[in-house]
């Protein structure tokens, strides 16, 4: 059977569209079942958890004076707001990706570009923050202001070349973690978009 034969009958098909009472108000309250909608839900859940964790750390720091000298508490207080910011931008990115503009191909190309550029910007911003943090730590060590940040004393006792190696290790770890996080959230999505684009060539 040829496609043209199906075409003839395809266009003579009819259906009683008034059989169902479509209610747009209820429809807009429904959740989409697309992968992006699932991802959005996941990020929304995570973003709600972070302020709770942050508040928990603050309470610990206030209630237990000893904890104030613990480096893990300080690290948590720095990392959690940064992570919240990361989730917020992820959420914004997903919302942007949900929008559809132009032809199918243009839309997919724009989404891929947006995903890649956002990831690049995120990486650059993170590296700058890390670099500033390292410069700050080195400045504190140089000026002997070791009382400001817990654990700095330990870091000062490590010889400079080894410290540099530690910083490089952190950069390397950050690269791996960022790549993993990006793949975890958008890897499958971007791969599929690229596959669709290849099919279009």
């Amino acid at each position: 059977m040829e496609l043209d034969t199906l075409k003839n009958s395809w266009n003579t098909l009819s259906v009683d569209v008034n059989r169902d009472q479509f209610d747009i108000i209820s429809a807009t309250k429904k959740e989409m079942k697309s992968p992006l909608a699932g991802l959005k839900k996941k990020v929304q859940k995570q973003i709600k958890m972070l302020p709770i964790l942050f508040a928990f750390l603050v309470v610990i720091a206030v209630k237990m004076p000893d904890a104030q000298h613990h480096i893990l508490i300080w690290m948590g207080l720095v990392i959690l707001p940064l992570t919240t910011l990361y989730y917020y931008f992820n959420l914004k990115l997903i919302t942007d990706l949900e929008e559809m503009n132009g032809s199918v191909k243009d839309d997919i190309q724009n989404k891929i570009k947006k995903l890649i550029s956002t990831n690049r910007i995120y990486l650059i911003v993170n590296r700058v923050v890390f670099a500033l943090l390292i410069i700050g730590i080195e400045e504190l060590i140089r000026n002997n202001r070791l009382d400001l940040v817990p654990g700095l004393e330990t870091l000062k006792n490590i010889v400079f070349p080894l410290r540099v190696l530690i910083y490089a290790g952190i950069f390397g770890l950050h690269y791996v973690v960022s790549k993993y996080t990006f793949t975890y959230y958008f890897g499958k999505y971007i791969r599929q978009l690229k596959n669709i684009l290849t099919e279009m060539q």
Partner: protein
Amino acid sequence: MNNYFINFSNLVTFFQNGEQIAKSIPLKKTDLELEFEARLKEYKLVIYKVCRMYKNDPNDIQDLYQDIIIQLWKSYPKFRGEAKFSTWLYRIAINTALASFTRKKRAIQTSEVELYNIQMPYEEDIGLKEEQHQQLHTAIQQLNDIEKSIVILYLEDKSYDAMEEILGISNATLRVKMNRIKDKLRTLTNNK
């Protein structure tokens, strides 16, 4: 003094009653909603056909149908008439279908209540039950997603220019792809 304390169970009952009342009051539709519904009415079958082209499982078809309508509604306020309404609708419908690739295994929680407001036309209405049509439809299912979108537009009697506008694939590439699709379908149906 006791009067100033809020009784928790009363509060719960209050909110539950409030929710019930809110559900029973028919919400007034905005002009935009009415306009959208009116325009959508004549394209419901088209949307169903797009869903049927990409999905086999009735529940997946239902989900996709729902997703396309929600996506259309979300995008409608930005529709400025730069393209024809049908072009815009096809773009969003196909785009949503293409993006619906990763479905988790269906959870059993999908209830009739959940689907109450967005019902699809029944397949019997479409008349694809004849054996020959069914055979071709099975062959179409073996095409890749882009080939399927070309087939749906072809079956909808869209010109190559219109297909180019919707898909963004050049006219020449579309013609080559169409010939390949026809050959592929011929082979697939002859092998049966």
